[in-house]
């Protein structure tokens, strides 16, 4: 006898597709935030499924820190052309050049925080009224209280203490002029769910996620990728190791895992045995206990 039940990946997929379709129906000019990381690749894949055989009805927005992995950019361009969607790029370098943003200095200088300004600018310039993001509630404790439909005021700010109640699957996307929404269709997915889904659906990822040789150096208990613009401390030296990226962000704050995993199954095995969260390998979250909450309030992803 049929038991009419979905496995958890199918149920999460159905939920994410529903949310994406709600965005297409409730907003006039939404976009999908695309970073080139695995979560946004899964988002792109879900969007394709949600509207097939029509094309994805919104552009992708990439906030380019100028410190990206070459492989991630190549992958982005390839995917965008396959899907036939428009790509909008917001450049942190341009924000710096125009004086809207000031580059951090010092050893741990990162453009991660500067992305917020560029992102808000891009949303305003392009008049996006909703931005779909691949944020998940299991990533970080401030994210655990995030809604699917997250309201932002006209300054792009998140007010965690005054969020709209969200019940059943009835999403309220109503807003005043100048306000916008961040929408997180894969809110309920865990890191493991994302990897299992990539495995189940056979989704292609950038080569960076698999084992490769890379110049890197050791800082604050983790391996970081080396790039010529990065400043090394006197005791740090560049070494070549066999590594893979657990997340892909800006080069300056993406931690590497020493790994020989070159298939999704091996990566899943590795993650199942890991005892540190995914964001534990992101230098940007280690700055303070409420680092993410503070950045989110300002309008971060």
């Amino acid at each position: 006898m049929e038991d009419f039940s979905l496995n958890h990946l199918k149920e999460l997929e159905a939920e994410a597709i529903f949310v994406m379709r709600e965005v297409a129906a409730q907003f006039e000019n939404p976009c999908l935030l695309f970073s080139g990381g695995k979560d946004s690749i899964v988002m792109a894949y879900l969007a394709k499924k949600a509207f097939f055989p029509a094309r994805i009805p919104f552009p992708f927005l990439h906030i380019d820190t100028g410190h990206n992995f070459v492989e991630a950019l190549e992958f982005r361009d390839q995917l965008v052309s396959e899907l036939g969607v428009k790509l909008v790029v917001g450049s942190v370098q341009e924000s710096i050049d125009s004086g809207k943003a000031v580059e951090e200095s010092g050893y741990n200088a990162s453009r991660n925080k500067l992305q917020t300004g560029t992102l808000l600018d891009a949303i305003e310039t392009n008049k996006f009224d909703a931005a779909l993001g691949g944020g998940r509630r299991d990533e970080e404790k401030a994210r655990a209280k995030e809604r699917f439909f997250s309201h932002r005021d006209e300054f792009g700010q998140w007010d965690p203490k005054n969020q709209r109640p969200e019940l059943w699957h009835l999403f309220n996307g109503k807003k005043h002029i100048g306000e916008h929404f961040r929408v997180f269709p894969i809110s309920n997915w865990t890191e493991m769910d994302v990897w299992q889904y990539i495995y189940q659906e056979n989704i292609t990822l950038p080569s960076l996620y698999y084992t490769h040789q890379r110049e890197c150096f050791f800082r604050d208990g983790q391996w970081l990728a080396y790039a010529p613009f990065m400043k090394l401390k006197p005791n740090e030296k560049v070494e070549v190791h066999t590594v893979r990226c657990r997340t892909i962000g800006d080069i300056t704050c993406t931690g590497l895992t020493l790994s020989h995993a070159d298939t999704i199954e091996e990566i899943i095995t590795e993650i199942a045995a890991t005892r540190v969260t995914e964001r534990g390998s992101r230098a940007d979250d280690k700055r303070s206990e409420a680092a993410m909450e503070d950045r989110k309030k300002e309008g971060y992803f």
Partner: protein
Amino acid sequence: MNTDSTKGYLDMQLLRFTTAGSVDDGKSTLIGRLLYDSKAIFEDQMEAIERASKGRGEEEVNLALLTDGLRAEREQGITIDVAYRYFATPKRKFIIADTPGHIQYTRNMVTGASTANVAVILIDARNGVIEQTRRHAYIANLLQIPHIVACINKMDLVDFDEAVYNKIKADFVEVERKLGIHDVHYVPISARDGDNVVDKSTKTPWYTGPTFLDLIETIELRRDKNLDDRRFPVQLVIRPMREAFHDYRGYAGKIAGGIWKPGQKVKVLPSGFETEVEAIDFGGDEIEMAFPPQSVTIRLKDEIDISRGDMLVDPACAPYAEQDIDMMVCWFNEKPLIERGKYIIKHTTNEVRAIIKEIKYKVNINTIENIYDDKKVSLNDIACISVKTTKPLFFDSYKKNRVTGSVIIIDEGTNETVGAGMIL
């Protein structure tokens, strides 16, 4: 992990449960234990809460800090909002909607309960069934959570006494009867020491039932959704405008009820036209069958004018299509509900304006009695109201279908979600 276990993981079922409780009843300890024992807490998270516990001058690691995500919550030592937590065992993946239990957070409890399959109600063995227990049971029942697990906690503090357990159980059965709740499970536990949480306790030889984890791993979820009455609210129309799919016209949505197959008869609401299901598409494949909560695209035999907010249904058992609707509401806003006031109502993919015709009565959720002489519905209040909508909604009673029986109420001026309604 070999291929077999990868496959095993792929076949897990999803269970959403909600926990409601106050600061002292051990709710956070129970969640902390589940997360810790299922290895959902990572080393860096554990280190972070060890550090934070020490910083607060606490001797033991305070697992509650794990669920208090916002700075204000940590500062005040309270949970303000619904926090979602995730863990998995080899059998199921779990989503916990962790909500504060105090009366001023009724709206958070209601929010967490709206998507749950199971409500976990914690009862302190020393205090037994108290006002708060009744309130939690009332909300679980109001939101029609199909299963309730009553955890009689802190059994270690009453020497694992069977008589204490039996007394509390008998008291809760009384609540069950009063509310008309069906599926309740009882388990004596000590969340702090782990008795009957994951492993069976040696201190309760008189208890022969499953442990807490066994229960939530095995509770039957099959009947939780409506598989009888076909309901498909149209979310949007898919028209590719591409050469290869020139004549394609599909209706995208999430199945809200019934089992759908090609060839079945369909009635379109509100137009009333009847036709047949031509095919069911999903991500480029035609599928044989679809059921809740799948998101699919349905194609119909005949070309009919259909748009978002319309509903495809089984002609043999159509939903109500009416403008006068009675419902229970939970109020979420500082600004009280206004009798004769106008609001926006969101129901499935439909949105209508509505006027509150009458506030019939308010419910005292501590004593579960109706109040007829005070009709001021303020933040966290629950009431029975009548509304009139500007055009018909296609609905079922909330008892029959949680998707087609639920609405949210939106303030036209502020755009805030000010209430949640369950249609009677």
